[in-house]
């Protein structure tokens, strides 16, 4: 097994762990954290492909990762603010109880 392959497999594993958490947890904050984990695994792919790519001196992978980290930080701040607003509205962060749109 080559090295790039092991990094990609680790990234896929992180993505699946984040996806499992986002799909199965009931706490809205932990669902958001699962989404952060999925973004992190995408960043790991960017860096791994940059390191093993043909032109690492061009810095494209690093730039992608930096901008992706910034977007993830903005997403986390807005997401947690939305969770706080929803908590103030419904007095819970339990996603199974936030079902007022259910038909």
């Amino acid at each position, binding site marked *: 097994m*080559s*090295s*790039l*392959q*092991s*990094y*990609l497999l*680790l990234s*896929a*594993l*992180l*993505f*699946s*762990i*984040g*996806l*499992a*958490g986002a*799909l*199965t*947890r*009931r*706490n809205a*904050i*932990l669902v958001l*954290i699962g989404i*952060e*984990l999925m973004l*992190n695994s995408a*960043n*790991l792919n960017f*860096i*791994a492909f940059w*390191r093993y*790519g043909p032109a*690492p*001196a061009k*810095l494209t*992978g*690093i*730039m992608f*990762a*930096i901008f992706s*980290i*910034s977007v*993830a*930080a*903005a*997403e*986390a*701040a*807005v997401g*947690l*603010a939305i969770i*706080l607003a929803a908590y*103030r509205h419904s*007095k819970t962060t*339990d*996603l*199974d109880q936030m079902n007022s749109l259910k038909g």
Partner: protein
Amino acid sequence: MTVTFLILAVITVAGTAAAMGLRNAVHCVLALTVGFAGVAAIYLQLDAQFVGLTQIMVYVGAVAILAVFAIMMTHTPLPAKPPTYSSFWLLGSVVAAAVFAVLAWAICSSAASTQGLPPEPEVSVQQIGDALMHQFVLPLEIMGLLLTAALIGAVVIAMDRREETK
């Protein structure tokens, strides 16, 4: 695949799996910082020092603290502990396992992922700053605008408006 990578991978996967599996939400965030730090160490191992340190500052420093604050502000002392997992946790786990199986199959059967390690690139922080200020200056400005909008938006959304209406 080196011993260093194996150790870091085990730490990262253990931290993130604990973050998604533990019952107490605060313990989850603490385990998550371990996972984020492991990813940062893997960046450092891949010779991306700037991204590794950014990862530590943004994720371990900021996002984890934000999550802890959000958990603290939404904490409700309940007499009975609610179930940790959603009602369709089995379906979610199966979907996640299927996604991992497909990704692993694609990675293992790809010809692009079998090449060896190229020589270590010489990347200094000065080069990254030069690139940010010349080639990527427009994305940088847009990112600044996005972060400002996100900051204001987060404050506006999370603000308690009941005080104003009194």
